[in-house]
């Protein structure tokens, strides 16, 4: 699974993307986040306030209980500030 990070989430984690091979019990975005925060303190810090985290699956904004699988591109980012 391709996972992308933007803005200060990228800065906290220290990379802008990574390829993860996930085991079968990670079925939703929520499961993925619960896995990521076990990797190290940087991830834990990045996801410490979920009210300011947004996520997309294959470039569409989705909810935290969205089903995901290994072919998907998942991205995490703060609220957008375009324009």
């Amino acid at each position, binding site marked *: 699974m391709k996972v992308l990070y933007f*803005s200060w989430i990228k800065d906290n984690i220290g990379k802008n993307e990574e390829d993860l091979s996930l085991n079968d019990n990670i079925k939703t975005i929520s499961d993925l986040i619960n896995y990521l925060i076990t990797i190290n303190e940087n991830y834990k810090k990045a996801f410490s306030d979920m009210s300011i985290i947004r996520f997309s699956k294959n*470039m569409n904004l989705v909810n935290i209980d969205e089903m995901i699988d290994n072919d998907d591109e998942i*991205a995490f*980012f*703060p609220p*957008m*500030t*375009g*324009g």
Partner: protein
Amino acid sequence: MIKVQTENFSLEKETKNLIHKNNNVGAVSSFIGIVRDKAKEKDLISMTLEHYPGMTQTMLKKIEKQAYLRWKLLDSLIIHRYGELFPGDNIVLVITLSKHRKDAINACHFLIDWLKTKGPFWKYEKTKNSGHWVEALESDNLEEKKWDI
């Protein structure tokens, strides 16, 4: 049309091009967003816009389509820049064309409000001794919500 680019744009060139491409244009509304020279009361050195390339095109096309469903538009253009920009640089251009003023004006307003909260861009402001990511404003959220997308 959607363009996401590092280069600057010309308001006159884009406006003329759109007017010539269409018949019976009666109203042209445009909005330009510009990098201001202050960031939280400090002198700004630069603002770097990061975006999510694949998603930007998808989302901007989606919202442009929304505008056409709501108003009678003859044409429209959104140009959004990314990369490092400096005070006075253009960030974004929205142009809408219609027969009657109401459609162009409202569609332009809608598109720029929407870009503020749903355009997949993030801004990093560099000041003399520090830098920070710009937080989304709750006021922008409220502005966007009034369009009831």
